[in-house]
């Protein structure tokens, strides 16, 4: 049996290897004079992306996505950019998953407009509709996003782990021993992470890394101590680390308190999409956004409220090496 020290050493080595495998290296094409050696996080905003009814405008979401991906990849032609993402992610001719987050219910779930915009660009990049699989925990979560269930491979597929089931064997990393969704383990060659930015009553903030709680059978097993180190450990599980290649975070709307459920009285519209391959940098940026909003409305910081997202620093530490939470090593590109 491995000692704790040996385990951590092995895990850390594995983490470095997996880290290099999980990067698409898309940000390399950007201007080398800017942000060299830093993790890039693109924040694309459109103040008019949400209509008067609070729903995002489909065309504006597609345009915002294109702007975000152009800034991230350096490719002005969105189809070329998406072809590169698919090729470098190992998704050519295979199933590409789009993992949404509908846990909070209608009103605070990944927007269908964003999902469909990505599905549209993937198809234009040559991905067959049936090779695009939009998924989450279950049908209720997907419907909360405004999506319809479809298991027919003639079109873009959309169903939950309640249909596909979970592996009986557990993966293991640190405190995480998940039984993963078969959609992740058996169907998808690569997955694009589509979380929605929210306050979280235990973890503090939920965005890129916390969205992985929707890929295992019993997420409640990892809720202890503010989900720390649960979130970081879970994201180190090899299948998750190797298949989740890119995060396009939905911050078209958000809740800055009272999450992860829908609290209309705490709803706010950052009108933004965030893109990165560094989940830690992305979550650090998300935390800053939530804190900025809370300060604006005169609320306590998450630290003062007793729920700072400590898992972010854990994810960046020497045993996890999932990315960086050091603001000096994060290059934010606002477009």
């Amino acid at each position: 049996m491995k000692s704790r020290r040996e385990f951590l050493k092995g895990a850390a080595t594995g983490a470095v290897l997996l880290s290099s495998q999980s990067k698409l290296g898309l940000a390399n094409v950007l201007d080398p004079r800017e942000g060299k050696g830093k993790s890039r996080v693109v924040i694309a905003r459109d103040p008019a992306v949400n209509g008067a009814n609070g729903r995002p405008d489909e065309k504006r979401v597609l345009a915002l996505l294109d702007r975000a991906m152009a800034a991230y990849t350096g490719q002005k032609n969105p189809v070329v950019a998406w072809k590169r993402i698919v090729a470098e992610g190992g998704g050519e001719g295979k199933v590409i998953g789009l993992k949404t987050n509908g846990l909070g219910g209608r009103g605070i779930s990944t927007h269908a407009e964003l999902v469909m915009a990505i599905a549209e660009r993937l198809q234009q990049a040559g991905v067959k509709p049936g090779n695009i699989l939009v998924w989450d925990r279950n049908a209720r979560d997907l419907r909360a996003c405004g999506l319809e269930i479809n298991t027919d491979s003639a079109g873009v597929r959309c169903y939950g782990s309640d249909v596909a089931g979970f592996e009986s064997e557990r993966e293991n990393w640190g405190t995480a021993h998940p039984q993963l969704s078969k959609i992740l383990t058996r169907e998808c060659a690569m997955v694009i992470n589509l979380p929605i930015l929210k306050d979280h009553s235990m973890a503090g903030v939920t965005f890129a890394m916390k969205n992985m709680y929707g890929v295992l059978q019993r997420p409640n097993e990892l809720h202890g101590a503010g989900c720390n180190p649960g979130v970081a450990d879970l994201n180190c599980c090899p299948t998750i680390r190797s298949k989740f290649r890119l995060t396009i975070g939905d911050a078209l709307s958000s809740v800055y308190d009272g999450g992860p459920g829908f609290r209309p009285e705490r709803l706010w519209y950052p009108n933004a999409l965030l893109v990165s391959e560094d989940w830690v940098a992305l979550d650090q940026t998300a935390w800053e956004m939530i804190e900025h909003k809370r300060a604006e409305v005169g609320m306590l910081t998450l630290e003062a409220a007793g729920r700072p997202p400590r898992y972010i620093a854990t994810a960046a530490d020497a045993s996890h090496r999932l990315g960086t939470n050091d603001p000096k090593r994060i290059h934010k590109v606002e477009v």
Partner: protein
Amino acid sequence: MKGSRGWRWAVVAVAMAGLAAGVGCKKSQVDPFPATGAVTGWQKTDATRVYAAKDLWQYIDGDAEQYIKAGVVSTSTSEYKYDDKVEAVVDVHTMNGPEGARKILETGLTKDAKKVPLGDECVQYAQSVAFRKGPYLVRIVAYESTPETPQALMALARAVEAKL
């Protein structure tokens, strides 16, 4: 023999007590969800779902722990629609006592909450109403904001409160 007889009576007594408790439980169970048409304009659009405390994560994963810490026994939920304009969800949390309901309601309070006389305590926002009555904590959240939403939510909240 006398001892054995006493033992049998003890078993019967325990069984009767259990039965009585069971009947008591059944009597105390309430259906707080108004049927379609019971409140003007409101339609109950799905079946009531009930989650025991241990399964609450399946419904409100991430939020469940704070309810469990406050002593939730079960949570019932159902969706509603008002005049085909507003959709809403009604959550009824049955706590193990009034203190748990009070704790949860207070945790969620913000400065802009409008106090409304209903149950033991009630607060209203533009798109939601939350109140407590005894061990029950009720939260009604609308997905659309229209001029009619606040009034319609209060009408539904009063109907739920009357059934508790």
